[in-house]
């Protein structure tokens, strides 16, 4: 399905991605503060979705537990900031590592299963993680969560609670994430991820170790989720257990399905369209989730490969 897309295109592919980044960077100058702040949120959510896409879109690992990885990053960054006054830089690194380590730990056990069992096991791990956050409420703040002190939301002297530094920080995280995911899926390792998705038995016969490839892919996915969780905590000043609920496992899946699973730009497009849909629909009716749901049903009926998946299939074969 994506063989040509992952490796073809050459210069066009990089130009397309860099052009998107250029447009996003410039957006801070021409968007209103309200929309620019929403774009920050979309970029953070898109990083989460990019990670999900690596596991699901490219490696075929349908996880229902990514909320755990998001929360791992959020608390690995938020707790040291809250308890020991870490500044944003070290806290962010801790968050990325937290997401990656949690994914590796879950993967070691969950990857013994596949398909529906993998979905259920990851869902159970996420639920256990959520309950753990509630159980240790004196430290984690439980379901209420906690607001981060402004002193912890500083990096290189910049205050991340101010519009411009926050936008730039989110942009840098998003840009690095996007380019890394493009490089990854076009690398030999990225092709072995796709091989796991397409035919695990055949790739095993060719000498790959499916367990290790999938574990590495899941850990990469966890790094992204961790980065997104840490970024949310530090950029918006809040960490809470609601981010570990099933809703946040479903959301990245929806973003990826909407934008196009197995496309590098699909997660961003999905997050953007979904955010815009909720924003527009909530202005029209209090039953806005119904409109969003109807839009998703229409997508499944008419473009089951998502927006970019459909575009790639019909018109732009080189889209990665």
């Amino acid at each position: 399905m994506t063989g040509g897309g992952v490796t073809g295109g050459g210069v066009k592919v990089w130009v397309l991605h860099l052009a998107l980044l250029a447009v996003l960077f410039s957006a801070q100058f021409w968007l209103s503060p309200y929309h620019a702040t929403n774009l920050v949120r979309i970029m953070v959510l898109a990083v989460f979705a990019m990670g999900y896409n690596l596991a699901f879109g490219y490696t075929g690992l349908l996880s229902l537990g990514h909320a755990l990885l998001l929360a791992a990053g959020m608390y690995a960054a938020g707790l040291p900031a809250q308890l020991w006054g870490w500044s944003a830089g070290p806290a962010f690194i801790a968050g990325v590592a937290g997401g990656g380590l949690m994914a590796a730990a879950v993967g070691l056990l969950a990857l013994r299963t596949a398909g529906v069992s993998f979905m259920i096991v990851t869902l159970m791990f996420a639920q256990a993680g959520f309950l753990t956050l509630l159980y240790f409420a004196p430290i984690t703040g439980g379901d209420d969560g906690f607001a981060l002190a402004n002193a912890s939301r500083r990096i290189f002297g910049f205050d991340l609670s101010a519009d411009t530094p926050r936008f730039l920080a989110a942009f840098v995280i998003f840009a690095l994430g996007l380019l890394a995911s493009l490089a990854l899926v076009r690398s030999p390792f990225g092709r072995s991820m796709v091989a796991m998705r397409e035919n695990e038995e055949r790739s095993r016969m060719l000498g790959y170790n499916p367990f290790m490839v999938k574990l590495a892919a899941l850990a990469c996915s966890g790094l992204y989720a961790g980065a997104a969780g840490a970024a949310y905590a530090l950029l918006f000043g809040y960490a809470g257990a609601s981010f570990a609920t099933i809703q946040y496992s479903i959301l990245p899946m929806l973003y990826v399905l909407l934008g196009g699973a197995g496309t590098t730009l699909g997660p961003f497009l999905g997050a953007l369209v979904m955010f815009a849909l909720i924003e527009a629909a909530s202005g029209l009716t209090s039953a806005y989730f119904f409109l969003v749901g109807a839009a998703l049903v229409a997508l499944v009926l008419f473009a089951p490969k998502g927006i970019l998946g459909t575009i790639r299939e019909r018109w732009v074969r080189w889209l990665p």
Partner: protein
Amino acid sequence: MKKLDSSGALTPHDNQGPTRGRNSGESDMTSLLHPTRRGLLLAGGAGLLTAALPGHVAAQGAPIKIGFQLHRTGIGAAYGRWYERTAQAALKAINDGGGIAGRPVELLFEDDATDPKRGAEVVDKLTQSDGCDVVMGTLFSHVVMGSAPRAGELKVPYLVCSEGYHVASGALNRWTLQPGITDVRSQIQAMAPWVSANLGKKVAMVFPDYAFGYDHRDFFTAAIAAQGGEVVAQIAIPPTETTFTRYFPQIPAGTEVIYHVMVGPAVLTFVKELGEFYGSGAKPQLFGFIDSLEAVDTATPGLEFLEGSHFWEAHPRVKPADAGEHEAAYRAAVGVDDNGASVSDPADVATYSHMFSTWETLFFLKQAMEAAGYTGPADRQKLVEAMEAIGDMPYGIERPQGAKVFNGKTHQVFGTQNISQIQGGKLVRVHQTSMADGAYDDAVDYTTMAF
């Protein structure tokens, strides 16, 4: 004057001006193109007058916009429905009484899906996109925690109606206040003297195993100890639990009072199973918080075991015989009957012990805006300082739940509480606490924090 009106010169904010100008035809247009000397003088005088009083003239017409962060969907929807109705009723009362400082008031509702992430986005939308002067109305604590940092960044007053201890604990910021409802710490503490004097001193607590339950566990344990009582068991029930029978043997034999604060749909199962556990034999006294049964009819089949048991209520759902003079007017304005249900649907039971907070918050805002001489977003800091300066607030139609004292340092309001007993399936008030029962030492002084 008539000519000037039709040209729109005297009333730049009157949007009828241009329309009337068009309708009045050629003669007006001619007078504009070839003004008389008298007309010019009048226009010049009017211009000077407008220039001299720009703020005043603009303020007369421009409405004050209040953003309301509403739990329209999600776990808080039952509360949200009544919060919206109560706030709309207060809005009507305020506008009928001349608005705020003579300006009309608008409420803009935006659903936050009872989710902290969406909550922060809603604060953003109401403030930056809709241009609201202040944001208010949030109930669930986690949405408050998730939204307050954004309100602080936007420097917009954020008035929550949550009863959480988050504001008074010092966890939030200078821009977040809770002026409409007493916090849960004070509510719990105020219960202890009456419980120990009337129900018993040996208390077993059953509570959900997360933050809401821990507030009850920690604050009530300390409060009952101060009354010479003791908590003989603390039974935390995981939030995912659907059956409770296996926890009941943990209740010690000598227990005199079971203090329960289960919430959500599980409360019906909890009560039914507790009834089966004790059967028709001797049982301890039961004391609970009405949060368990907000929007639930106390005569619901399955709740018979609660007959004779006691509940905390902030505002008695069933109108007491000795209710205050403004109680009837408040109920009529919101559309609630004497049993605490919607006048149009007796099965639609109100969240009566919480929703008054939106009414009282709107009137608090009116008082503070008028005291601050609020004219627009540039005065937001002045507005917060005016709120912090408010202290005693007497009983009146502005505060149908009762008199209050606002503590400007902790940004938290304090009022009296009630204890009601279920008699014949209805809640009947049997006791009202004093404000002193719920007093505790300040944990924070927000007035020393920077804006």
